[in-house]
């Protein structure tokens, strides 16, 4: 009996040790130039290039799938780099765009990437039966409506010129930067030879999106161990050059444990803005680590407070301005973010080329807030509900500050916290007064999906005629200088109407071990688009 137990213990020990060693690189192990480990906070919901609903999903998708071009802001200017396309031309009318796919661009199963694949992707996204969140990205293409959907019998502005060359027409002339970023960089191409026969209404549930073995990017999908890690293997035939790092593991690491992982060098790259950052408390410590590069940069995302416009008492813009005055936003930046952030009154980030410097945030002024509320006839006995999603610790703390500030201005507030999906459902259903939310967008200043009447992410449920008019003008204006003037005006209208209160723009705080070379961070591409250039050292 005793011998059996000893043997059993021995066997268990061996199994445990083997379990630790097997996925070397996942659980620490020797640091190799062949393996890199990235860490992000939460698991992806799927790997659907046209429908994954979180940045976690897109972070993974971008290892495997490419769009036509890559976008990046350099010196306050939008720049484009080749991805699937090796060349692209903008017609003199700002309405005709021609792309040539790289001759060696191929799917992971060896089939070439062709204009047929691009057409298939566009037809799929624009099919009203398809579940996708890429619609807004292609809405400017001829034949599509504002949500990027095709009406029955409508002709898509798409022409195949050669097997690897195609032309797209937009409905009206548009700013080439907008088109190249939205269609060029944000629409990932699907393999027609794999998905071509799947009915559009069944596509979202297709097993391919949990096991996307045929991609066109620098890395191939190996496996996803639920809630633990996603493993990628290099694509030797990647048309822009085979990656240097053979395997990349993207591990799911909760925020609180990320510091320990960075300290032990078990983690090479924190995934980045909004999905894998260093906690603000841990920031000073990471900056002091000898083996780590701590990178902080202005990020294209912001936290904001929604007003539910379905509540009559929040429809008066004096009330909303009073709330903007009441909330001490500079305190959030100086104390909650320890200075790692900026303020702005609107959805265009201060680091964005379209930012209007003349629009200043409404200053913190409790007396002014109270006066405005009195003027607007606010009922000081009313208790309003502030809905707060859990997960982002700084945002949760900001809720306590907001409540305290509003109470000082005479507004009674009750905080209701819930996990993100529950909170989102309540906000979508209009079951709230104030709500906290975060947003990260592309560099292009078109924010119609959030701030136009009926927009997919118009969570305030607002409808402001003047704002709609300016937003529509912005999309239709092709001339970059005139377009800038339109968005300058938009930001003025925004600060006046305040469909939401922009709370702060937090810097992204990321950590990269010094053995990693060529890891890029910047304010436009949320993620490093050149992962294939990563080099991992042995130290």
């Amino acid at each position, binding site marked *: 009996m005793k011998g059996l137990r000893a043997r059993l213990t021995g066997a268990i020990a061996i199994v445990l040790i083997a379990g630790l060693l097997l996925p070397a690189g996942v659980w620490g192990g020797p640091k190799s130039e062949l393996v890199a480990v990235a860490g992000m906070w939460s698991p992806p919901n799927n790997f659907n290039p046209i429908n994954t609903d979180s940045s976690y999903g897109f972070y993974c998708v971008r290892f495997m799938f490419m769009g036509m071009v890559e976008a990046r802001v350099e010196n306050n200017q939008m720049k484009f780099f080749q991805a699937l396309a090796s060349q692209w031309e903008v017609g003199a009318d700002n309405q005709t765009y021609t792309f040539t796919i790289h001759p060696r661009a191929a799917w992971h199963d060896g089939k070439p990437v062709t204009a047929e694949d691009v057409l298939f992707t566009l037809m799929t996204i624009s099919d009203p039966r398809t579940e996708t969140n890429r619609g807004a990205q292609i809405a400017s293409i001829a034949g599509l409506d504002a949500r990027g959907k095709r009406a029955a019998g409508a002709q898509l502005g798409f022409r195949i010129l050669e097997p690897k060359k195609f032309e797209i027409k937009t409905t009206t002339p548009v700013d080439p930067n907008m088109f190249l970023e939205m269609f060029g960089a944000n629409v990932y191409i699907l393999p027609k030879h794999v998905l071509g026969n799947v009915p559009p209404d069944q596509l979202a549930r297709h097993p391919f999106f949990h096991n996307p073995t045929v991609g066109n990017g620098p890395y191939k999908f190996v496996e996803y161990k639920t809630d633990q890690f996603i493993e990628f293997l290099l694509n030797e035939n990647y048309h822009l050059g085979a990656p240097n790092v053979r395997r990349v593991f993207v591990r799911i690491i909760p925020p609180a444990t990320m*510091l320990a992982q960075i300290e032990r060098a078990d983690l090479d790259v924190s995934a980045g803005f909004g999905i894998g950052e260093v906690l603000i408390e*841990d920031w000073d410590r990471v900056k002091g680590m000898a083996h780590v590069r701590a990178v902080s940069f202005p990020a294209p995302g912001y936290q904001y407070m929604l007003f539910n416009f379905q509540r009559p008492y929040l429809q008066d813009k004096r009330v909303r301005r009073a709330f903007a005055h009441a909330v001490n936003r500079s305190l959030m930046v100086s*104390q909650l973010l320890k200075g790692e952030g900026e303020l702005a009154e609107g959805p265009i980030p201060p680091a964005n080329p379209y930012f209007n410097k003349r629009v200043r945030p409404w200053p913190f002024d409790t007396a002014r807030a109270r006066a405005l509320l009195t003027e607007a006839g606010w009922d000081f006995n009313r208790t309003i509900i502030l809905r707060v999603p859990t997960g982002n610790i700084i945002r949760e703390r900001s809720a306590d500050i907001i409540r305290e500030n509003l109470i000082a201005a005479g507004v009674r507030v*009750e905080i209701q*916290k*819930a996990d993100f999906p529950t909170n989102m459902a309540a906000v979508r259903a209009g079951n709230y007064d104030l709500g906290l939310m975060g947003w990260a967008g592309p560099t292009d200043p078109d924010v119609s999906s959030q701030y136009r009447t009926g927009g997919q992410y118009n969570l305030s449920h607002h409808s402001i005629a003047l704002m709609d008019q300016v937003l529509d003008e912005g999309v239709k204006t092709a001339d970059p200088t005139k377009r800038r003037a339109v968005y300058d005006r938009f930001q003025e209208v925004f600060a006046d109407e305040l469909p939401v209160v922009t709370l702060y723009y937090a810097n992204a705080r990321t950590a990269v071990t010094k053995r990693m070379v060529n890891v890029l961070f910047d304010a436009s591409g949320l993620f490093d688009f050149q992962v294939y250039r990563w080099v991992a050292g042995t130290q």
Partner: protein
Amino acid sequence: MRHRLAVVGIVALGILAIMALAAPLLAPHSPTAIDPTTFQGRPSSVHLFGTDSVGRDVLSRLIYAARVSLSVGILAVTMYVLIGTSVGAIAGYYGGTVDLVLSRIMDIMLSFPPLIIILFAVSVFGRPSLWNVIIVLGLLGWPAVARLVRGQVLALRQQEFVQAARAIGASDPVVVMRHLLPNAMAPVLVAATFGTANAILVEAALSFLGMGVQPPTPSWGNMLTDAQSLTVLEQMPWLWVPPGFMILVSVLTINFVGDGLRDALDPSLKL
């Protein structure tokens, strides 16, 4: 020796109770007031226990949080002792099918992992709040008490004084209320004491997970949520040691009292 510990426990509990009742008088600051000059500030003469991650006075929050913990402990346990005693008495007294059905219900409820059920119930109840935690704990805690009472009633039912009461024509409610329950209460009282300690721990766990008391109301559990970073754990002990210590002290002292009660009420030790 044991009784000395129980006395210490009672004194400490008394202090906690006074702290909770007199919180507005004792706390140096409002528990929700934000000091804009110092977030996560070290203990100082203004803030004896420092400030938390939103610049609020830790000491004041600690004092106010005693209200939450004690009210959850006392109210939830009162609630489930009432339910458990009634159900247990009915099951034990009537026996037969009634007992069978009620006992199986108890078995089923006791076989679930409690925290998971509580988490589920709190979220189904709508939004998390102090009252929901109390109600959920109260509604889920009764089977253990019911079992105790049922066992006691089953044993007592056969005794002569009960049969005598029946013989002179006492109705069922009278027999149960007058003769059975008073004799069955000793173990219930002990269970209730330990239950209070447990309820305080569960509230702390729920609030730590964000499913308990809602901010900005302080509770020892949600004060601990600040400590979810290695840097805080290592370099800012004032954010998590005080609430942790309070949970420890309150649970420990209540358990001392429970031990003392058990010894005092256990007939086998009275010899």
